């Protein structure tokens, strides 16, 4: 017998110390008082007194200890949580990557296992861990976030709550040593926790939460429209315009900039509700490993991937786009040709010339 999936609620912040975990624990305490069977499956205290005080009276499922490279690591004991089977489980730090040797690579995969058992989950994360914002975060702050989480994982959350604190208040908390120990706090304030970085990240979090709210409203509208369409009704007067689905095609190569291209193309596709495909043109031997890595990255973001074994990249791209109803082609800038080849056209130039009936987007690298 299959159980109904548990509900997922995400507390979204824009930096460590804004109070995500605190807010989550506040809700946990409220639920406990209402008699809900709730446990802490994973909690990262960071030595913060006010937060630790909020855990009082909440049952904790002990973590498991793992050894890796001679060091001891503590991870959530997902099996123990599943055995305990509470109504609600608290799991801090949604974007966490598990230490090698655990069953699942990412904590969000553990969370999916818990949800699958019909347990509701409350969790926390920062906006900079969203895959689609990775380049924008780098551009705004100079920091390349390594631990990312695919957007669809967060989109699937039943509820997203933005936890706000002004950058000034956050910096005050750092100064008072509430967030980190003094020395670490001082370094943090000089590097990541600058006023501009925090403000930029906060704006991203606000916009992302607004976007998620809108997506939920759109989904509700679509569901309502589908119900209506099933009802018998009078045919509308005149021809109905067929809703044309936008289709974005991302051209992958082995070049490192392909990752930026994938994130950007997918982000635009998500916002305009377009389908998203990725294609690589070329023989399988050249840059094989890098191409394969980009293809699997694209698939992780739920992008359909194709390979066309052809030497003529622009023609292959143009004909694939035409046969697959592509409305917009996304590609990276071609590397500049050496001067003795400047009489030739780059692939972008060739495609632009050959596919003048198509929309082509050339994505610039986001540098600092």
């Amino acid at each position, binding site marked *: 017998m299959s159980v109904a999936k548990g509900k997922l*609620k995400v507390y979204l912040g824009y930096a460590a110390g804004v109070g995500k975990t605190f807010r989550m624990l506040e809700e946990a305490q409220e639920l406990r008082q209402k008699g809900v069977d709730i446990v802490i499956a994973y909690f990262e205290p960071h030595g913060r007194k006010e937060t630790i005080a909020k855990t009082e009276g909440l049952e904790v499922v002990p973590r498991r200890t793992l050894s890796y490279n001679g060091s001891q690591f503590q991870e959530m004991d997902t099996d123990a949580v599943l055995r305990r089977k509470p109504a609600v489980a608290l799991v801090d730090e949604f974007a966490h990557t598990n230490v090698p040797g655990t069953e699942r690579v990412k904590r969000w995969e553990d969370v999916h296992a818990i949800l699958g058992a019909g347990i509701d989950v409350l969790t926390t994360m920062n906006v900079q861990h969203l895959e689609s914002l990775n380049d*924008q975060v780098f*551009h*705004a702050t100079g920091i390349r976030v390594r631990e990312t989480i695919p957007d669809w994982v967060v989109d699937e959350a039943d*509820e*997203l*709550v*933005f*936890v*706000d*604190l*002004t950058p*000034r*208040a956050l910096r005050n908390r750092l100064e008072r040593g509430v967030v980190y120990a003094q020395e670490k706090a001082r370094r943090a304030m000089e590097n990541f926790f600058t*006023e*501009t970085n925090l*403000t*930029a990240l*906060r*704006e*991203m979090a*606000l*916009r992302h*939460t*607004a*976007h998620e*709210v*809108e997506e*939920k*409203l759109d989904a*509700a509208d679509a569901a309502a429209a589908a119900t209506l369409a099933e009802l018998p009704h009078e045919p509308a007067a005149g021809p109905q315009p067929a809703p044309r689905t936008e289709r974005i095609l991302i051209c992958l190569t082995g070049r490192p900039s392909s990752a930026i291209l994938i994130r*950007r193309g997918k982000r635009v596709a998500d*916002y*305009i*509700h377009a389908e998203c495909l990725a294609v690589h043109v070329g023989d399988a031997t050249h840059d094989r490993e890098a191409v394969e890595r980009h293809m699997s990255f694209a698939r992780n973001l739920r992008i359909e991937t194709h390979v066309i074994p052809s030497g003529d990249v622009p023609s292959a791209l143009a004909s694939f786009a035409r046969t697959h109803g592509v*409305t*917009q082609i996304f590609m990276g*800038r071609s590397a*500049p040709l050496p001067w003795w080849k*400047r*009489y030739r*056209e780059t692939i*972008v*130039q060739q495609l*632009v*010339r050959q596919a*003048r*009936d*198509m*929309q*082509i*987007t*050339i*994505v*610039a690298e*986001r*540098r600092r």
Partner: protein
Amino acid sequence: MAPGRIILGKMPSVDNSRPNPEELLRKVQADERRESRGRLKVFLGYASRVGKSFRMFDEGRRRKERGQDVVVGALQAGVHPEIQGILKRLDVVPTIPTKHAGRDYQVMDMSALFRRHPEVCLIDGLAYDNPPGSRNPYRWQDVSELLDRGIAVITAVNLQHIREQQDQVERITGKRAANCIPEEFLHEADEIEVVDAPPDALMDRTGGNTIPDSRRLAELRELALLLAADVVDRQLQEYLDSHGVAARWGAQERVLVCLTPRSNATDMLHSGQRNKLRFHGALLAAYVEQADLRPQDRELLEKNLALARELGAEVHCLKGGDFVDAILAFAREQRITQLFLGHTGRPGRAWLARSPIDRLIDGAEGFDVRLFPHGSAL
């Protein structure tokens, strides 16, 4: 700049990147005023009972515990029991109940507050009117006076009380709040903090539980988040400007449509408008002035510009000899993230010559270039 405003004849800042003396003087004066002025912090909520007041009083409590002199300047009727607990530990300067023309008012006791002169004044409910004959017609003006005297103010306000948002709020809820504050007042605040909660939690608290309620609340919530994002975006740009940091890519998507007489303006502008709506971004349209335009081309261009304005684009005319240089400078200055451009009319290319499109693509720093076909879309 408000979306949809039309600015003609604006020059790209390559020529005037240096602020003029008046601007500098204004900046210095503003900085001086800010130095001596009390700080203003506003808690923004999207509906009643999201917990704004509690968050505000809780901050007052924490500041008091840290040794700051905190006083309550205004309370709202029906104080929540959780807040009652906090109030026991804070001094309250009661508002003066006043009756005028059959209406009840609660007026802040300004002279008592001036005498008491606390470091921090908590004011619950910012959007209140004062009766005729008061010191100021509106409470937000009282707050301004407190700030001028160096008293920091922490206050709370709901979305429906922000004047520029009231049309949209009314469209969603069918109701319009009688009292309001100008949105500019929020922009002047040193800090605004959003109090967010999912609508479902709110309905548990308020007892309402119909789907229309939940939908309306979600729409209000989105509006409040976007308003806060705009306030934050402006703060960031002002901070960067005042610290001499070049404008850089923000979190907002900004689309620039490049118009020429022969470009397929309709498709570009409609796509641009859609992206503006979907991303809650900005839509700009620009053309580079050409002296030797033929009359029929001039007419086409005028038509395209009219359409741009109709679709809510900010229209800019760029003066400057070279098309590509003018567009690139303008895109940089305006923090553009997506540039829309038509494919060139002529097929093929001159031997060794780089087309304007090639040069634009090469020069695009931090923004995407999207090329549109001529004629109707595919």
